[in-house]
């Protein structure tokens, strides 16, 4: 897992290795599951629908299956440029 911007700050780390339970199948289910891991996760991810997900460095929707992704990233809406 990689976290950026205020998601990173609230969770308190930039990346970590996570073993996912078998019943976490989509990006959205991953977010819900992470929120149950502790207050910092619940705080970082409270506004679910604003959280963006990238699988192997590509944007995906929350209903995208995680299958096969080696790198999962969560972050706020982007503000570059």
């Amino acid at each position: 897992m990689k976290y950026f911007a205020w998601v990173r700050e609230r969770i308190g780390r930039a990346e970590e290795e996570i073993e996912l339970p078998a019943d976490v199948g989509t990006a959205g289910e991953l977010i819900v599951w992470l929120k149950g891991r502790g207050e910092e996760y619940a705080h970082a991810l409270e506004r679910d629908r604003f959280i963006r997900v990238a699988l192997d460095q590509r944007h995906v929707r929350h209903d995208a299956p995680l299958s096969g992704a080696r790198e999962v990233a969560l972050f706020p809406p982007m503000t570059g440029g």
Partner: protein
Amino acid sequence: MIDVRLTGEALDLAEAAARLGDDPDTGAIATFLGLCRGETGRLSALELEHYPGMAEAEITRIAESAMSRWPVRGIVAIHRFGIVKVGEPIVFVAARSSHRDAAFDAVRYVMDFLKTEAPFWKREHLVDGTVGPWVDATDADERAKARWA
């Protein structure tokens, strides 16, 4: 030709423009330069966090999409990360084409998607020395992207 680059250093605009190269059938070069605004004296700088690897990949995908939509002969995109002081460039995008419409459209398209799709996040550094909030994404930027649908 697509040339995408990220840098933690101040942009060298002459070098950036030179990356487009020479080409006797280019009749039009459109460019865009995004600068750190002072917000009427409130800010000293913006800090740009990015997702290394994905940032380059995403901007490259946007530039490829632009080149597939318009007859553009080359696109250069350079984006800063780290601390960018007021007045300094954050992003430079340029496109060359035979005719001006394609060059204008391609640069604007790249900027509209870069704003909302490239993984960068800005936070404010205030003139009083404190670090301010993360910048919120704007509806205006989402609408700008939607006009290309």
